[in-house]
Each structure stands twice: as C-alpha cells, then as structure tokens.
C-alpha cells in the first residue's frame, strides 16, 4: 500500500483554543514538514520491522548453528515458505477488505486432487493447471457471492467451504493417493520441485507474484478500490465503486492463489492426497497478519506476504537447528503473531491523534 506519512501530530488548522490565528506559525509548520523520503515511508511499515526481526534471528542463528547459512538449508527454508507466501498474497487482499478466507487449506486439498485426477486421466499439464485454478476460482466465486450479495459473514461462509471443499476432495479422490500425472508428469514435477539458477521454482513464482501484487496495489484502479472498501465500504459504495463485484473478485483471487500453491506443492511432493493443506489456513492468516495486514481491513502490503511467511518458517527452522524440542514450534509462531499485532497497535497509537 502506498503508505503516506505525516511527521508531526501537529495539525495545520488550529483548533478552538487559538483565538487570533497565528498565520506565521501555521506557515512555518507547513514548510517545516517535508515530504517523506521513500526510506522514511518504508521504515513506517510493519513488513520492514518484521524483516529486521528476520535479519536479527538470522544473525543469531549463524552463531548457533553451522548448518543454518548453508545453501541447502536456505534452499529448503525458502521453498517451504514460498507456498504460504503465495497464499498470503491472496489472503492479504481478502483481509484488506475486512474479510477472512478460512477455506484456503481445504482448497489446496480439493484443487490438488482435481489437478492430479485430470492429469492422471491422461490429460496434459495445461488442462491440469486450468482445472486446478478453475475449480479454485469457482469455490472463490461461491464464497464471494455469498459474502458480497447475500451478505453472510465471511468467517462463516469460508468455514463452511473449508468443510465442504475438504469433503469433496475426499469424495472425488475416493480417499486414495494420486501419484500418476499422465504425459507431462516430468514437467509437472519439475515445476514444483526443481530450481532455476539455484532458486526453487516456487520461490520464483512467489517473487514474481509479489512484484505483480505490489504493482497492482500501487497502480491499478482495482487495487485502489479494494483498499478503499477496506477503509470504508459505505463511502466506496456512495462513490460509485462496484463494491460487491470487487469483493467477489477478492475471494476468487485468494482461492486461485490457494490453487496455484497446491499445483506447485503437488508437483514438489510427486503425489497428492486429500489431506493436502490441512490446517494451512491458520498459517496463511498468521503470515498475512505478521506481514502487516490489519484484520479490520484497509491495509495491505504486497511484501508483507513473503516476509510474514518467511518469519514463520524461519522460527520453525531455527528451533529445529538450535535443538529445541519441536513441540515448542507452535508456541513461538503464536508468540510472534501476537507480538506482530502488538507492534502494529503501538505504532498506530503513536501516529493517530
């Protein structure tokens, strides 16, 4: 999001107390306030501080573990968080409108199975991809219509799809694993599981999408409208923005990102069961919030998605390498989630008023 800034809390227009208005003072205060530089604007964002935390953890880990900085470990860490980062990009859009999408984990299961079954039946990877993203977008469309037009609560609607999508995945897979992916099996497994220039393909996908999303949030009308809806849906409606259609599109986008993550993940695993993505929705939401999204809506950072996802994976990896009992993992992920929200609160308190 374009973060805008104001450096002082001093208002230009004096309030009631100041009877004869001191225009010279006002002019001074106007001229003394300069446009913020790009760096200043960046320092004010949540993703920046989370990035600092990542670097701090990274420095500590370099001393704690010899393995941490190895190419192999970095490769694994980055690949592991890429899937969550991709979904967090879509989740960011949903949360920006003040909604939530709990169905992304189940959607991975459903769309992974759909892609697997289509390719197992002998169709090429193109059709597998289209079926994967198409089925995701369809569920997103249903979610969106129920939320935007029927006005049901996003939490309830997507909780319903969470259950239904997983169930349909079980039904159509007949509870069996799919590991034959037809004529394009090699290509499919390469896309999800291999690397280009030493960087895992899912990480490339995440990097490209992050830039695309950044451009979308900053420069497109659609992005602007999503942010406006999150700020004040009623105002957006009165301004003539097709609020319902934009909200539907946001849920379709989030679902499609889950489909894309599933497509890559199944390729990496080389097999898919209907349990793919089980409970991932919580990690995705956590990553999105750590990346600076505000559940009240109106705030979105494209770079928050990969950064939030990276922090979570880093915590997991660090605990593992530091030899701390794996049972502590969830504790620290939860701790950072709360700390991230706290950080945002504190920063906002300093800025408003």
């Amino acid at each position, binding site marked *: 999001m374009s973060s805008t800034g104001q450096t002082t809390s001093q208002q230009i227009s004096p309030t009631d107390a100041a009877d004869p208005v001191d225009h010279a003072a006002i002019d001074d205060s106007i001229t003394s306030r300069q446009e913020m530089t790009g760096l200043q604007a960046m320092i004010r964002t949540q993703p920046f501080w989370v990035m600092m935390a990542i670097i701090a953890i990274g420095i500590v880990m370099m001393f704690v573990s010899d393995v941490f900085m190895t190419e192999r470990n970095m490769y694994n860490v980055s690949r592991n968080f890429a899937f969550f980062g991709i979904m967090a990009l879509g989740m960011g859009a949903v949360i920006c409108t003040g909604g939530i999408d709990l169905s992304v984990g189940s959607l991975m299961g459903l769309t992974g199975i759909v892609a697997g079954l289509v390719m197992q039946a002998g169709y090429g990877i193109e059709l597998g991809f289209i079926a994967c993203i198409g089925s995701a977008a369809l569920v997103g469309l249903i979610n969106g219509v129920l939320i935007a037009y029927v006005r049901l609560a996003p939490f309830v609607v997507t909780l319903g799809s969470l259950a239904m999508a997983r169930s349909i995945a079980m039904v159509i897979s007949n509870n069996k694993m799919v590991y034959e992916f037809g004529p394009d099996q090699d290509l499919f497994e390469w896309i999800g599981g291999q690397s280009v220039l030493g960087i895992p393909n899912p990480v490339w996908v995440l990097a490209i999408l992050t830039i695309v999303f950044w451009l979308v949030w900053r420069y497109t009308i659609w992005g602007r409208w999503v942010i406006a809806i999150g700020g*004040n849906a009623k105002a957006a409606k009165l*301004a003539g923005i097709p609020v319902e259609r934009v909200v539907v599109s946001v849920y379709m986008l989030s679902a499609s990102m889950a489909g894309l993550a599933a497509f890559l993940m199944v390729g990496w695993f080389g097999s898919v069961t209907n349990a793919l993505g089980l409970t991932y929705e919580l990690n995705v939401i956590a990553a999105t919030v750590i990346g600076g999204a505000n559940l009240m809506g109106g705030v979105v950072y494209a770079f928050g998605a990969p950064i939030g996802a990276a922090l979570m994976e880093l915590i997991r990896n660090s605990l593992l390498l530091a030899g701390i009992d794996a049972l502590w993992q969830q504790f620290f992920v939860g701790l950072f989630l709360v700390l991230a929200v706290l950080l945002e609160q504190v920063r906002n308190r300093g800025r408003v008023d």
Partner: protein
Amino acid sequence: MSLLELSRVTKSFGAIHALQGVDLRIAAGEAVGLMGDNGAGKSTLMKIIAGNFPPTSGAIRIEGKDVHFHRPIDARHHGIEIVYQDLALCDNLTAAGNVFLGRELKKSVGPFKILDYKAMYQRAGELFGELKSETRPRDLVKQMSGGQRQAVAIARTRLSDPKLVLMDEPTAAISVRQVKEVLALIKRMKDTGHAVILVSHRMPDVFDVCDRVAVLRRGTKVADRRIKDTSPEEVTGLITGAIEHAL
C-alpha cells in the same frame, strides 16, 4: 426558471407519511437552509433529492425538465452532489485519493492503464486552493481535522462541477473555528454559481450563509422565508410548532 424544483412531493413508508406535498424551489447561486426537528422529514427530502429513493408522488424538475432518480448515481448525472453527514471518506486514503474515489485519473503505460497520482495530487491541490483550504492532497484523511475533512468532501463534489450541492449537517461535529472554515467554503460555492441546500440544526450557520430558509414540520413545509425577512426566533417557533405557518 429554477435550477431545482420539487412540486407536491410526498413520500410514504407504509402507513407513515414522511412527506406530504412539499414544494421547494432553488435557483443557481442560491443557498437554502432546510430546517426542522428530528422526524420532520428533512432526511427523507434529502434522500429523494439525492436519488436514494423516488418520491411516492410529485415531480422533481431540474432546469424545467422532469427527472426520475432511482439510484444516487442518477442524481449525480443530473449535477447533484451530496456531502454526507458522516462525510463518507476513507480514512486510510489520502485527501486526493478520497477526492477522486471512484473517478480515479488514469494514464497509459504501454498496454496498461495505471493510476495517475501526479495528476490527481495536482488537481486536488487546485481544488483545495479554490476552496482556500490548507488541506494538502498527500495527507491521510485519518490525520485530518473536522474542517479539513469537510474540505475534502466538498472538493470531491466539485470534480464534476455540479449545479447543486446538498450538505447534510456539515457543521454538526466540528469545532467553532472549523465551523467558520466550512461556512466560508459554502459561501465560496455560492460565489461560483453553485446552488446549495444546507440541512442543519444550527441556527447561526443558516442565518450566516443562506439566502432562504425552509422549515419542515411533520412532513409538511410550514415556512419558506427569505433570511432577511425572518429571525431566528421566528424560525425556532416554526420548527417547534409555536408558530403555525409563515409561507
């Protein structure tokens, strides 16, 4: 010829008659205060002019032509802009972002159409300048005073160069100093030939900027006086019903 003319406008919600045969005329460059107690029908009349819903019966004419509004956008197409009481601004956007909300300026970059921030900041700056407001286009609305927020909401109505601006309680929730700013904004709109309907509970505001005052009581217009021919005492009497009629 009046800019806006309402004739015999009624509105019923089931058994409740919110408006009963209201006539109202307003000319270009004129400011009319619309007053009345809660439930007198002010909001209903506002919403009819704004296009939120059509009247049950009666006619709306703009520059002599019959018009029918079904949605707020219809009213906007006919040159009516509304400044809502809660201002309907997005706190998380800049002043310029709010001014251009829903009508963003675009420029072409290759095959893409992208937001033209520079043009929007510039145009918004010009609009604030015309309003003699110190509001700065790049500031977040979240950080603004009530007066500045009003300036944003008013600047927004000027984008389309409307014929009539409808203002709902623009001075209700702001400080004394800011009230002066807002009233100055209204005078500026009159000077530029815009008609203004000011819905307000505040007698001094109406007497300061309006040319006429129309009083509603229980769905009927009980008075339509030129400001110089009436007094705050008389208007108060008309609002409360202590004085029956003064047409």
